[in-house]
């Protein structure tokens, strides 16, 4: 990101419930583990991942959004890559 871009990023009122498009690949931390599945909260929007055995809570992952219901702010996704925890 350019210097100016860094300075100008985020001068907005960001929603508590961001929306995503199916097919979109995003980076995010794992919020919770439930059995084999993961819950990723981005603000108050929730993306559930069925098979995420390799990832732990607070691990950063790349995930592909497979569906998203904008009315209820919930979606599903698949793990593309586990990037691991911050050092």
């Amino acid at each position, binding site marked *: 990101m350019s*210097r100016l871009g860094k300075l100008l*990023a*985020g001068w907005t009122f*960001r929603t508590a419930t*961001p929306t995503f498009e199916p097919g979109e690949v995003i980076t995010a931390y794992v919020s919770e583990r439930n059995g084999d599945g993961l819950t990723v909260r981005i*603000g108050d929007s929730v993306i559930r991942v069925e098979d995420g055995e390799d990832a732990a809570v607070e691990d950063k992952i790349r995930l592909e959004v497979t569906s998203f219901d904008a009315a209820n702010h919930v979606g599903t996704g698949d793990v593309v890559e586990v990037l691991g925890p911050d*050092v």
Partner: protein
Amino acid sequence: MPEEPDIELSFRGGRLVSALPIALFIAWAIFQSGILGIGDTTGLVAGMLTGLIAGLLFVRGDWKDYADVIFAGMTRRVAATAVVAWLWAGMFAETIQVGGFVDGLVWAATVLNVGPGLFPAVTFLLAALLATGIGTGYGTAIAFTSLVFPAGLLLGANPVLLFGAILSGAVFGDNLAPVSDTTIVSAVTQDADIGGVVASRVKYAVVAAALAIAAYLVAGFGIPGVWGGMPHIDVAGEVSASVSPWGLVHLLDIALVIVLAVRGRHIIEAVSWGLLLAAAFNVALGAANLVDVSAGSMLLFSAPQNGLTQAVEALPLVGAVVETVPAGQVGVGGSVYSGAAGFFPLIVLTLLLVAGAEIMRAGGGFDAIQELVIDRVATTVRRAETTMVVGTALVNATVTINTAAEIAIAPYIATLGKRFNINGYRRANILDANTSALGYIFPWGGGLLAGYGAMQGLVGGEATPWFTAEMLVNPASVFPYVFHGWFLVAVFLFAAWTGYGREYVSDRTSEEVSRV
């Protein structure tokens, strides 16, 4: 560096007992600084050491594991990064100060002939500029109270308001400067690059600063100077005769550090270049007799008098940084020495605090507190951010040394924020704004005490013979006037509630942490 496998510790009394070293430290800090009014960082080191020993007594099983966890904590990268940044930033800041930078700012204010109504607002701006350049709010509070405060009184400005304006400027720089210790801690602990953190922070700092300037203008013209009977001297004539504008050339080496930092150079590299340029300026200014500075101001070996040392003193080049003194005054000095040494207690405290945090992690104390907060309080992103703002503010309002408070609360901000995928920049900003603000507001705040100490030095001082003990500002009376601090907290409460400036991890990820 390969990470060693995490050791788990078990404590008599349950997981929360692993918080004992840090809890005891916080209680010690409140007792020492809040109740007894002693702002001594080395005293806090003793508190943390006591806490670490107390925790040992509650460990189930092998005490060696406890010791290993202390080592694991102290060798974490976050600790090393902060140590390196402080040493370099300390040398740089001190070298600029001996180069007459503050004098340059005073000169600029006096030639513009600023009156008593305008003086607090202008003082806030200049203090903010200095603090942003040198990165130390404490240093700014000390320098401005020693140099600008008496000038403002002579002009007829209100002393309480003026002291508040100085502290506000210190808050601004502590919050925004790339070389500020709190900025560095906030970025490192939230896994974000310092340049990106500073750039993303501007949107909050300027809103609060604009409100603060307006408030200082209104108050400056609305509240009269308290001591109307004081001698009013033509400060413009009085001060400009004694201070030199040439220290302002250090704006160039500050700019160099900022440019290199924004270009993503490593902090050691960026500050080293700034330091070399500042040293070159100092030698040139001193040689031309423009500022009272020399190579010896930056590094000076004060050696005992004997044949050998006197021969060394007479040498060219090397002799410039060697002087011979009576036996009682032997030592090493100068800005490179004292700038780095000033951070030694804080460095040791940081290493021990990180060790204490590691024990809390290994013993499950963090998990226990987090589960409580996450399950009961921070159930939505708005409530999570509000919890982060209020929690940071409370810890910083009670612990004198704000950097220490920041290090203690930082892991909570990281975990709570990551749970809702709040961007590393945003987390660092929430953490640092409240850390910077609250450390300068209350009478036991380290920044306020630093400035007050400088003010006590004015009583009967050589340059201020008219300043008496009755003129000292009561430290407990200044808190309503640290406008920038209050506005900064207010801006973040507003931002948490409305989403102003909020960014998620999925919006953009922060860059590598060791970049400035």
